[in-house]
């Protein structure tokens, strides 16, 4: 009954037990722990069914699968699907859009939470600090559907955005920028930043809270101003976490937010809004070309893993050969 009975090895340690003995002792322990095992087994079954079966399902990328087939009856076609991808203009259009939006998000959306976190950290009035945090975390909890609906209101010709620009005299007549394909990349980027940059500060703030305050006092005695302190104390202390976030962001360059795309894409801006994810969705589920869509998805995941490993290597070089991952 007691725990110690379960932990102590049954066999003497000096001579190696045979396979048979080991299987036997495993079985004995296993059945003695039946209560614990009954807790774990449902989880294992879940993982097999909902994670490993779909991973096996990736093989349809190398097959020609149609609705009448089962996974195993579909004929193998080798790399045929991947060959088609290379000459698929719509696929490459979606790659361009994905990369453009990802790089804009990386350029602005990666820096802003860091700056914002430092600004919040520097506020000395706790009430004000709390207020800013409360407000800035809120949009993270809105769904993209809700935000998409709100954006339609803000950007409609009679909405907040046009009103503001008209009042400031920046435009002469109202127009709905959600219908303007050329502005889509910026709309996707900026709306994402509006939603997530406040939330993005949380991790940075948690790290900053751990910086030893005596560093700042010493710097002050040496005559360092606030900006100096930020540059020489706060930022170096955040190097690791910034690198980690950078690696994760880079590995996600080919991914994009499908919720956001689906709610903001319309027939007017589709050419600039279609990203790889939504292309997979459209090819696979709307048009039923399962094998082709899976091949696109698999190809993108492989490239993403390569990006992840490369980014990890590069940043670990920058961090004096300490690997961040």
């Amino acid at each position, binding site marked *: 009954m007691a725990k110690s009975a379960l932990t102590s090895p049954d066999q003497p340690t000096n001579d190696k037990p045979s396979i048979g003995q080991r299987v036997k002792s495993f079985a004995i322990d296993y059945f003695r722990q039946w209560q614990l095992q009954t807790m774990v087994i449902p*989880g294992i079954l879940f993982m097999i069914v909902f994670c490993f079966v779909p991973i096996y399902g990736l093989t349809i990328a190398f097959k020609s699968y149609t609705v009448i087939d089962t996974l195993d009856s579909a004929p193998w076609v080798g790399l045929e699907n991947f060959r088609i991808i290379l000459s698929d203009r719509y696929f490459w259009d979606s790659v361009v859009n994905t990369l453009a939006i990802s790089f804009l998000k990386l350029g602005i959306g990666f820096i802003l939470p860091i700056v914002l976190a430092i600004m919040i950290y520097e506020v000395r009035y706790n009430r004000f600090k709390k207020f800013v945090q409360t407000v800035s975390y809120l949009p993270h909890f809105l769904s993209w559907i809700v935000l998409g609906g709100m954006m339609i209101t803000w950007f409609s010709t009679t909405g907040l955005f046009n009103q503001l620009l008209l009042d400031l005299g920046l435009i002469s007549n109202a127009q709905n920028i959600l219908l303007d394909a050329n502005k889509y990349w910026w709309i996707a980027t900026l709306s994402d930043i509006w939603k997530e940059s406040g939330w993005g500060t949380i991790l940075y703030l948690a790290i900053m809270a751990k910086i030893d305050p005596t560093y700042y006092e010493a710097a002050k005695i040496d005559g360092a101003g606030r900006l100096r302190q930020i540059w020489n104390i706060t930022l170096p202390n955040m190097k690791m976490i910034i690198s980690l976030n950078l690696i994760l962001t880079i590995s996600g360059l080919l991914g994009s937010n499908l919720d956001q795309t689906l709610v903001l894409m319309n027939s007017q801006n589709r050419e600039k809004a279609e990203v790889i994810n939504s292309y997979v969705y459209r090819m696979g589920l709307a048009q039923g070309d399962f094998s082709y869509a899976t091949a696109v998805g698999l190809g993108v995941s492989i490239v993403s893993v390569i990006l992840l490993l490369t980014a990890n290597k590069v940043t670990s070089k920058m961090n004096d050969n300490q690997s961040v991952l």
Partner: protein
Amino acid sequence: MGLLTKPSGIKPTRIKGGLDNRVFDTVNMTLLLLFTVAIVVPLWNVLVSSFSSGQSLAQGGFVFWPTEFSLENYRAVFRDAGIWQAFFISVSKTVVGVSTHVFFCAMVAYGLSKKYLRGRRLYVAMGVITMFFSGGMIPTYLLIKSLGLLNSFWVYIIPALFSYYDVVILMNFFRNVPDALEESAKIDGAGDWRVFLSLFIPLSMPALATIALFNGVGQWNDFMTTKLYITDQSLYPLQMMLYEIIVQSQTQSMQNIGGSVVIETTTKGVQLATIVITTLPILAIYPLLQRYFISGMMLGAVKE
């Protein structure tokens, strides 16, 4: 805060630092204030727009207060039986989804948190693999289809039962419970299930609450599951209903630019009221969320 206590006796630095500091603080706080305004004003605008009459919505031109206050949008929304159905689906999938998810993850995490569990290394390896690899959209869709979960309420619950991330968080939490508690319960004759249910569950409420809250927000906001697997409208949650309204109103605003304003504003009003209704539960638990997400971050930050 150490920052507030200034070292005395170094006068020149102090005076210079004082002015610098004040400039810095003013600029800093002004910028942050602008940032909060950029978040609050648009949200406020949506709220007041939802209480605006169709007429004044069509004219626009207000920011903080509608030109004509009205409840007609909400009346229109609540007249539609669809929203009650969608609200019911949203609430039930959140309640059932969260409670089963939390229990399932806690159960697995409890088993895995015992170092002497036979087969543990294999189980953990499998879990880690699921964190990094997945079959992706199409193979998962085919699986869901072959399990007969398309157009079933259970597609909201069963595939969302388990998350290895949450298991890791709970495992770390369970490890920090002193062994003595468990041992004394076992001496009293309790089995592992008993220890888990009557000892660890009550002790782990803060961790369970954190996971429940985040999973709850996820369930409430989730729209992809419906979009991918559900075509039966009676199973649409609020998010999906809102999505349909949005798509519809987008198409309309493209079709009749300058055309029939009446139809457009009605959809717009309905859309706004639905947005507010969909967001309200999130706002209601926001204070709770705020209390837990810092602790949640800390739980997640602990490495295994």
